[in-house]
Protein backbone atom coordinates (compact mmCIF):
# COMPACT_ATOMS: atom_id res chain seq x y z
CA UNK A 1 0.00 0.00 0.00
CA UNK A 2 2.82 2.36 0.82
CA UNK A 3 4.25 1.88 -2.66
CA UNK A 4 0.85 2.69 -4.12
CA UNK A 5 0.00 5.77 -2.07
CA UNK A 6 3.45 6.89 -0.93
CA UNK A 7 3.78 9.48 -3.69
CA UNK A 8 0.57 11.21 -2.58
CA UNK A 9 2.49 12.55 0.40
CA UNK A 10 5.04 14.11 -1.97
CA UNK A 11 2.43 16.49 -3.42
CA UNK A 12 3.25 20.10 -2.55
CA UNK A 13 0.79 23.01 -2.67
CA UNK A 14 3.00 24.76 -5.23
CA UNK A 15 2.50 21.82 -7.58
CA UNK A 16 -1.26 22.03 -7.13
CA UNK A 17 -1.10 25.72 -8.07
CA UNK A 18 0.83 24.74 -11.22
CA UNK A 19 -1.84 22.15 -12.09
CA UNK A 20 -4.37 24.97 -11.88
CA UNK A 21 -2.20 27.14 -14.15
CA UNK A 22 -1.89 24.22 -16.58
CA UNK A 23 -5.66 23.73 -16.52
CA UNK A 24 -6.17 27.46 -17.12
CA UNK A 25 -3.88 27.35 -20.18
CA UNK A 26 -5.78 24.32 -21.54
CA UNK A 27 -9.09 26.14 -20.90
CA UNK A 28 -7.89 29.29 -22.69
CA UNK A 29 -6.64 27.19 -25.60
CA UNK A 30 -9.83 25.18 -26.06
CA UNK A 31 -12.61 27.47 -24.90
CA UNK A 32 -11.17 30.86 -25.92
CA UNK A 33 -9.03 29.51 -28.79
CA UNK A 34 -6.06 31.56 -27.58
CA UNK A 35 -2.96 30.29 -29.47
CA UNK A 36 -4.29 26.72 -28.97
CA UNK A 37 -1.44 25.03 -30.82
CA UNK A 38 0.98 26.20 -28.13
CA UNK A 39 -1.02 26.95 -25.01
CA UNK A 40 -2.62 23.50 -25.00
CA UNK A 41 0.68 21.53 -25.11
CA UNK A 42 2.23 23.97 -22.61
CA UNK A 43 -0.78 23.60 -20.32
CA UNK A 44 -0.73 19.82 -20.48
CA UNK A 45 3.05 19.78 -20.08
CA UNK A 46 2.75 22.02 -17.02
CA UNK A 47 0.60 19.40 -15.32
CA UNK A 48 2.93 16.65 -16.51
CA UNK A 49 6.11 18.15 -15.05
CA UNK A 50 4.50 19.17 -11.77
CA UNK A 51 3.35 15.73 -10.72
CA UNK A 52 5.38 14.62 -7.69
CA UNK A 53 8.57 12.86 -8.81
CA UNK A 54 7.35 13.16 -12.41
CA UNK A 55 9.09 10.68 -14.68
CA UNK A 56 8.69 13.09 -17.60
CA UNK A 57 11.51 15.26 -16.26
CA UNK A 58 14.91 14.30 -14.88
CA UNK A 59 14.81 13.27 -11.21
CA UNK A 60 17.45 12.19 -8.75
CA UNK A 61 15.97 9.30 -6.80
CA UNK A 62 18.04 7.61 -4.11
CA UNK A 63 21.19 9.15 -5.56
CA UNK A 64 20.51 7.81 -9.04
CA UNK A 65 19.68 10.16 -11.93
CA UNK A 66 16.66 9.15 -14.00
CA UNK A 67 16.59 11.16 -17.22
CA UNK A 68 13.13 12.40 -18.22
CA UNK A 69 11.98 12.44 -21.84
CA UNK A 70 11.01 16.13 -21.75
CA UNK A 71 14.53 17.06 -20.67
CA UNK A 72 15.88 14.96 -23.54
CA UNK A 73 13.61 16.87 -25.93
CA UNK A 74 14.63 20.19 -24.35
CA UNK A 75 18.33 19.46 -24.81
CA UNK A 76 17.76 18.21 -28.36
CA UNK A 77 15.43 20.94 -29.55
CA UNK A 78 15.47 24.07 -27.45
CA UNK A 79 18.82 24.22 -25.64
CA UNK A 80 20.52 24.25 -29.06
CA UNK A 81 17.81 26.51 -30.63
CA UNK A 82 16.84 23.87 -33.21
CA UNK A 83 13.04 23.93 -32.73
CA UNK A 84 12.50 27.71 -33.04
CA UNK A 85 14.71 27.82 -36.12
CA UNK A 86 12.93 24.93 -37.85
CA UNK A 87 9.62 26.57 -36.99
CA UNK A 88 10.88 29.70 -38.71
CA UNK A 89 11.32 27.76 -41.97
CA UNK A 90 7.61 26.94 -41.80
CA UNK A 91 6.62 30.50 -40.89
CA UNK A 92 8.76 31.91 -43.71
CA UNK A 93 7.03 29.58 -46.16
CA UNK A 94 3.63 30.82 -44.94
CA UNK A 95 4.29 34.55 -45.36
CA UNK A 96 3.44 36.39 -48.56
CA UNK A 97 5.54 39.57 -48.64
CA UNK A 98 3.74 41.01 -51.70
CA UNK A 99 1.80 43.75 -49.81
CA UNK A 100 5.11 44.90 -48.33
CA UNK A 101 7.11 44.68 -51.56
CA UNK A 102 4.49 46.69 -53.44
CA UNK A 103 4.73 49.48 -50.84
CA UNK A 104 8.18 49.14 -49.21
CA UNK A 105 8.00 52.35 -47.16
CA UNK A 106 5.61 50.49 -44.86
CA UNK A 107 8.66 48.70 -43.48
CA UNK A 108 9.55 51.76 -41.44
CA UNK A 109 6.53 51.14 -39.19
CA UNK A 110 7.71 47.61 -38.51
CA UNK A 111 10.96 49.08 -37.19
CA UNK A 112 9.08 51.73 -35.20
CA UNK A 113 6.91 49.15 -33.47
CA UNK A 114 9.94 47.46 -31.93
CA UNK A 115 10.18 50.42 -29.55
CA UNK A 116 8.51 48.42 -26.77
CA UNK A 117 11.38 45.91 -26.76
CA UNK A 118 14.02 48.53 -26.07
CA UNK A 119 11.82 50.50 -23.66
CA UNK A 120 11.10 47.35 -21.65
CA UNK A 121 14.78 46.42 -21.67
CA UNK A 122 15.58 49.73 -19.94
CA UNK A 123 12.67 49.35 -17.52
CA UNK A 124 13.59 45.78 -16.56
CA UNK A 125 17.18 46.87 -15.93
CA UNK A 126 15.94 49.77 -13.84
CA UNK A 127 13.87 47.31 -11.78
CA UNK A 128 16.99 45.33 -10.99
CA UNK A 129 16.91 42.44 -13.46
CA UNK A 130 20.28 41.16 -14.64
CA UNK A 131 21.00 42.47 -18.17
CA UNK A 132 20.66 39.02 -19.78
CA UNK A 133 17.34 38.42 -18.03
CA UNK A 134 16.18 41.96 -18.88
CA UNK A 135 17.01 41.40 -22.58
CA UNK A 136 15.12 38.09 -22.55
CA UNK A 137 12.08 39.70 -20.91
CA UNK A 138 12.17 42.64 -23.32
CA UNK A 139 12.07 40.36 -26.35
CA UNK A 140 8.49 39.44 -25.36
CA UNK A 141 7.78 42.68 -27.24
CA UNK A 142 8.89 41.00 -30.46
CA UNK A 143 5.45 39.35 -30.34
CA UNK A 144 7.05 36.43 -32.09
CA UNK A 145 7.38 33.04 -30.40
CA UNK A 146 10.47 31.58 -32.10
CA UNK A 147 12.44 34.84 -31.67
CA UNK A 148 11.49 34.96 -27.99
CA UNK A 149 12.57 31.36 -27.43
CA UNK A 150 15.78 31.84 -29.43
CA UNK A 151 16.88 35.00 -27.60
CA UNK A 152 15.78 33.77 -24.16
CA UNK A 153 17.62 30.53 -24.61
CA UNK A 154 20.73 32.23 -26.00
CA UNK A 155 20.77 34.52 -22.96
CA UNK A 156 20.32 31.45 -20.73
CA UNK A 157 17.72 33.24 -18.67
CA UNK A 158 16.32 31.43 -15.67
CA UNK A 159 12.87 32.83 -16.52
CA UNK A 160 12.53 31.18 -19.94
CA UNK A 161 9.31 29.30 -19.03
CA UNK A 162 7.51 32.39 -17.75
CA UNK A 163 8.76 34.49 -20.67
CA UNK A 164 7.47 32.07 -23.30
CA UNK A 165 4.06 31.64 -21.67
CA UNK A 166 3.69 35.41 -21.22
CA UNK A 167 4.75 36.06 -24.83
CA UNK A 168 2.27 33.60 -26.33
CA UNK A 169 -0.51 34.73 -23.99
CA UNK A 170 -0.13 38.39 -24.96
CA UNK A 171 0.09 37.47 -28.65
CA UNK A 172 -3.31 35.86 -28.26
CA UNK A 173 -4.54 38.95 -26.40
CA UNK A 174 -3.57 41.44 -29.13
CA UNK A 175 -7.27 42.14 -29.96
CA UNK A 176 -7.79 43.15 -26.33
CA UNK A 177 -4.49 45.01 -25.70
CA UNK A 178 -4.10 47.09 -28.86
CA UNK A 179 -7.49 48.85 -29.44
CA UNK A 180 -7.60 50.87 -26.17
CA UNK A 181 -3.94 51.85 -26.56
CA UNK A 182 -4.50 52.98 -30.16
CA UNK A 183 -7.61 54.96 -29.19
CA UNK A 184 -5.63 56.63 -26.41
CA UNK A 185 -2.91 57.93 -28.73
CA UNK A 186 -5.00 58.84 -31.81
CA UNK A 187 -7.88 61.21 -32.48
CA UNK A 188 -11.14 60.10 -34.10
CA UNK A 189 -10.22 62.19 -37.13
CA UNK A 190 -6.92 60.35 -37.49
CA UNK A 191 -8.61 56.98 -37.17
CA UNK A 192 -10.97 57.94 -40.00
CA UNK A 193 -8.20 58.73 -42.50
CA UNK A 194 -8.90 56.69 -45.61
CA UNK A 195 -6.09 55.03 -47.49
CA UNK A 196 -6.35 54.05 -51.13
CA UNK A 197 -5.06 50.68 -52.10
CA UNK A 198 -3.80 50.33 -55.63
CA UNK A 199 -2.57 46.84 -56.22
CA UNK A 200 0.89 46.98 -57.78
CA UNK A 201 2.40 43.94 -59.35
CA UNK A 202 5.67 42.70 -57.94
CA UNK A 203 8.03 40.79 -60.20
CA UNK A 204 8.98 37.23 -59.41
CA UNK A 205 12.65 38.27 -59.49
CA UNK A 206 12.03 40.79 -56.69
CA UNK A 207 10.23 38.16 -54.64
CA UNK A 208 13.18 35.79 -55.04
CA UNK A 209 15.89 38.38 -54.42
CA UNK A 210 14.18 39.85 -51.34
CA UNK A 211 14.75 36.91 -48.95
CA UNK A 212 18.34 36.51 -50.14
CA UNK A 213 19.30 40.15 -49.76
CA UNK A 214 17.50 40.61 -46.45
CA UNK A 215 19.55 37.73 -45.04
CA UNK A 216 22.78 39.29 -46.27
CA UNK A 217 21.98 42.81 -45.01
CA UNK A 218 20.65 41.68 -41.62
CA UNK A 219 23.57 39.29 -41.29
CA UNK A 220 26.10 42.06 -41.86
CA UNK A 221 24.54 44.47 -39.35
CA UNK A 222 23.44 41.96 -36.71
CA UNK A 223 25.53 38.87 -37.25
CA UNK A 224 23.87 36.94 -34.44
CA UNK A 225 20.52 37.23 -36.19
CA UNK A 226 21.79 35.26 -39.20
CA UNK A 227 20.32 31.95 -38.06
CA UNK A 228 16.94 33.49 -37.23
CA UNK A 229 16.54 35.63 -40.32
CA UNK A 230 18.25 33.04 -42.51
CA UNK A 231 15.85 30.22 -41.62
CA UNK A 232 12.84 32.54 -41.94
CA UNK A 233 13.96 33.74 -45.35
CA UNK A 234 14.95 30.27 -46.51
CA UNK A 235 11.35 29.25 -45.87
CA UNK A 236 10.17 32.24 -47.89
CA UNK A 237 12.61 31.50 -50.71
CA UNK A 238 11.30 27.95 -51.16
CA UNK A 239 7.79 29.46 -51.28
CA UNK A 240 8.63 32.07 -53.90
CA UNK A 241 11.11 30.22 -56.11
CA UNK A 242 8.29 28.37 -57.85
CA UNK A 243 10.16 25.09 -58.26
CA UNK A 244 9.84 23.69 -54.74
CA UNK A 245 6.11 23.68 -54.16
CA UNK A 246 6.25 20.29 -52.45
CA UNK A 247 8.89 21.46 -49.96
CA UNK A 248 7.05 24.72 -49.41
CA UNK A 249 3.84 22.89 -48.62
CA UNK A 250 5.65 20.49 -46.28
CA UNK A 251 7.35 23.37 -44.46
CA UNK A 252 4.06 25.26 -44.06
CA UNK A 253 2.06 22.33 -42.79
CA UNK A 254 3.93 19.19 -41.73
CA UNK A 255 7.14 20.75 -40.45
CA UNK A 256 5.46 23.69 -38.68
CA UNK A 257 2.86 21.44 -37.04
CA UNK A 258 5.37 18.81 -35.96
CA UNK A 259 7.72 21.34 -34.38
CA UNK A 260 4.84 23.19 -32.71
CA UNK A 261 3.64 19.91 -31.23
CA UNK A 262 6.96 19.22 -29.52
CA UNK A 263 7.81 22.85 -28.80
CA UNK A 264 4.88 23.47 -26.49
CA UNK A 265 5.34 20.26 -24.58
CA UNK A 266 9.08 20.77 -24.26
CA UNK A 267 8.79 24.38 -23.10
CA UNK A 268 6.75 23.06 -20.18
CA UNK A 269 9.93 21.61 -18.63
CA UNK A 270 10.60 25.18 -17.50
CA UNK A 271 7.18 25.47 -15.91
CA UNK A 272 8.12 23.65 -12.72
CA UNK A 273 6.73 25.21 -9.55
CA UNK A 274 10.13 25.99 -8.04
CA UNK A 275 11.20 28.21 -10.93
CA UNK A 276 7.78 29.60 -11.91
CA UNK A 277 5.99 30.58 -8.72
CA UNK A 278 7.84 33.69 -7.64
CA UNK A 279 7.52 37.46 -7.64
CA UNK A 280 9.65 37.73 -10.77
CA UNK A 281 7.01 35.89 -12.82
CA UNK A 282 4.47 38.56 -11.85
CA UNK A 283 6.95 41.26 -12.84
CA UNK A 284 7.54 39.51 -16.19
CA UNK A 285 3.77 39.49 -16.71
CA UNK A 286 3.67 43.27 -16.17
CA UNK A 287 6.80 43.98 -18.22
CA UNK A 288 5.48 41.90 -21.12
CA UNK A 289 2.34 44.01 -21.18
CA UNK A 290 4.47 47.16 -21.10
CA UNK A 291 6.41 45.85 -24.10
CA UNK A 292 3.24 45.25 -26.12
CA UNK A 293 1.78 48.65 -25.19
CA UNK A 294 4.92 50.59 -26.11
CA UNK A 295 5.36 48.63 -29.35
CA UNK A 296 1.88 49.84 -30.30
CA UNK A 297 2.61 53.41 -29.19
CA UNK A 298 5.95 53.44 -31.08
CA UNK A 299 4.32 52.31 -34.32
CA UNK A 300 1.46 54.81 -34.08
CA UNK A 301 3.71 57.76 -33.20
CA UNK A 302 6.09 57.19 -36.09
CA UNK A 303 3.04 56.98 -38.40
CA UNK A 304 1.83 60.31 -36.98
CA UNK A 305 5.31 61.76 -37.50
CA UNK A 306 5.22 60.53 -41.11
CA UNK A 307 1.97 62.45 -41.62
CA UNK A 308 3.66 65.69 -40.52
CA UNK A 309 6.04 65.49 -43.47
CA UNK A 310 3.91 63.72 -46.08
CA UNK A 311 1.24 65.19 -48.37
CA UNK A 312 -0.53 61.86 -48.69
CA UNK A 313 -1.73 61.09 -45.16
CA UNK A 314 -1.76 57.60 -43.79
CA UNK A 315 -4.01 56.24 -41.10
CA UNK A 316 -1.72 56.15 -38.03
CA UNK A 317 -3.44 53.02 -36.75
CA UNK A 318 -1.58 50.94 -39.34
CA UNK A 319 1.67 51.75 -37.48
CA UNK A 320 0.43 49.58 -34.62
CA UNK A 321 0.37 46.52 -36.92
CA UNK A 322 4.18 46.62 -36.91
CA UNK A 323 4.03 44.67 -33.65
CA UNK A 324 4.44 41.42 -35.65
CA UNK A 325 1.77 39.09 -34.11
CA UNK A 326 0.89 38.10 -37.67
CA UNK A 327 -1.90 38.22 -38.92
CA UNK A 328 -3.94 39.09 -35.84
CA UNK A 329 -2.69 42.65 -35.48
CA UNK A 330 -3.54 43.48 -39.12
CA UNK A 331 -7.08 42.17 -38.61
CA UNK A 332 -7.49 44.24 -35.45
CA UNK A 333 -6.45 47.43 -37.26
CA UNK A 334 -8.78 46.68 -40.17
CA UNK A 335 -11.70 46.12 -37.81
CA UNK A 336 -10.93 49.34 -35.95
CA UNK A 337 -10.83 51.23 -39.26
CA UNK A 338 -14.21 49.80 -40.30
CA UNK A 339 -15.68 50.68 -36.93
CA UNK A 340 -14.74 54.34 -37.43
CA UNK A 341 -15.80 54.44 -41.08
CA UNK A 342 -17.48 51.44 -42.70
CA UNK A 343 -15.89 52.25 -46.07
CA UNK A 344 -12.33 52.44 -44.74
CA UNK A 345 -10.55 49.24 -45.71
CA UNK A 346 -7.09 49.20 -44.16
CA UNK A 347 -6.43 45.47 -44.34
CA UNK A 348 -3.84 45.35 -47.12
CA UNK A 349 -1.87 48.28 -45.71
CA UNK A 350 -2.00 46.74 -42.24
CA UNK A 351 -0.88 43.34 -43.59
CA UNK A 352 2.11 45.05 -45.25
CA UNK A 353 3.10 46.66 -41.96
CA UNK A 354 2.39 43.43 -40.10
CA UNK A 355 4.78 41.32 -42.21
CA UNK A 356 7.38 44.08 -41.95
CA UNK A 357 6.97 43.77 -38.18
CA UNK A 358 7.81 40.08 -38.52
CA UNK A 359 11.09 40.98 -40.20
CA UNK A 360 11.85 43.89 -37.86
CA UNK A 361 11.24 41.79 -34.76
CA UNK A 362 13.86 39.29 -35.92
CA UNK A 363 16.30 42.13 -36.66
CA UNK A 364 15.56 43.57 -33.21
CA UNK A 365 16.27 40.15 -31.72
CA UNK A 366 19.58 40.11 -33.56
CA UNK A 367 20.40 43.60 -32.28
CA UNK A 368 19.65 42.49 -28.72
CA UNK A 369 21.95 39.49 -29.14
CA UNK A 370 24.72 41.59 -30.69
CA UNK A 371 24.56 44.33 -28.04
CA UNK A 372 23.83 42.33 -24.92
CA UNK A 373 24.67 38.69 -25.75
Amino acid at each position, binding site marked *: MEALFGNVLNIQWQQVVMWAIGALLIYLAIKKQMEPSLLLPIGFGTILVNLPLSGAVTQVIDGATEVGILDVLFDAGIANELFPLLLFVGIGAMIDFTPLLSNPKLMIFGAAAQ*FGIFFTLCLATLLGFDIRDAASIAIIGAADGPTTIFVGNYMQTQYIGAIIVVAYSYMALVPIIQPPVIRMVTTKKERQIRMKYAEKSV*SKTTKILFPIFITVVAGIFASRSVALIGFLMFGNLIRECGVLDGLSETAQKVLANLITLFLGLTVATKMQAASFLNAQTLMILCLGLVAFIFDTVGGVFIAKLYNVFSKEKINPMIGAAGISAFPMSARVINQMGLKEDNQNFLLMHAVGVNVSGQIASVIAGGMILSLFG
Partner: protein
Amino acid sequence: MFNMDTFLPVLGKALQGWMGVFVVTLILIALVYLFNQLFSNNSNKQ
Protein backbone atom coordinates in the same frame (compact mmCIF):
# COMPACT_ATOMS: atom_id res chain seq x y z
CA MET B 1 14.80 50.25 -5.62
CA PHE B 2 15.90 51.59 -8.99
CA ASN B 3 19.27 50.54 -10.26
CA MET B 4 20.56 53.71 -11.99
CA ASP B 5 24.20 52.55 -12.29
CA THR B 6 23.35 49.81 -14.76
CA PHE B 7 20.41 51.67 -16.29
CA LEU B 8 22.27 54.52 -18.00
CA PRO B 9 24.71 52.39 -20.05
CA VAL B 10 21.81 50.10 -21.02
CA LEU B 11 19.76 53.11 -22.15
CA GLY B 12 22.51 54.11 -24.58
CA LYS B 13 22.80 50.61 -25.98
CA ALA B 14 19.01 50.24 -26.22
CA LEU B 15 18.79 53.42 -28.30
CA GLN B 16 21.61 52.08 -30.44
CA GLY B 17 19.68 48.83 -30.91
CA TRP B 18 16.47 50.57 -31.97
CA MET B 19 18.42 52.81 -34.35
CA GLY B 20 20.09 49.68 -35.71
CA VAL B 21 16.68 48.23 -36.59
CA PHE B 22 15.89 51.48 -38.48
CA VAL B 23 19.23 51.46 -40.33
CA VAL B 24 18.74 47.88 -41.55
CA THR B 25 15.12 48.67 -42.46
CA LEU B 26 16.08 51.77 -44.46
CA ILE B 27 18.65 49.76 -46.42
CA LEU B 28 16.00 47.13 -47.14
CA ILE B 29 13.50 49.78 -48.26
CA ALA B 30 16.10 51.21 -50.66
CA LEU B 31 16.87 47.71 -51.98
CA VAL B 32 13.20 46.89 -52.59
CA TYR B 33 12.65 50.20 -54.43
CA LEU B 34 15.71 49.37 -56.53
CA PHE B 35 14.45 45.86 -57.30
CA ASN B 36 11.01 47.20 -58.18
CA GLN B 37 12.60 49.71 -60.56
CA LEU B 38 14.92 47.18 -62.15
CA PHE B 39 12.48 44.33 -62.57
CA SER B 40 9.06 45.96 -62.83
CA ASN B 41 9.03 45.91 -66.63
CA ASN B 42 10.18 42.32 -66.94
CA SER B 43 7.87 39.73 -68.36
CA ASN B 44 8.02 37.66 -65.19
CA LYS B 45 5.33 39.58 -63.30
CA GLN B 46 3.00 37.61 -61.07
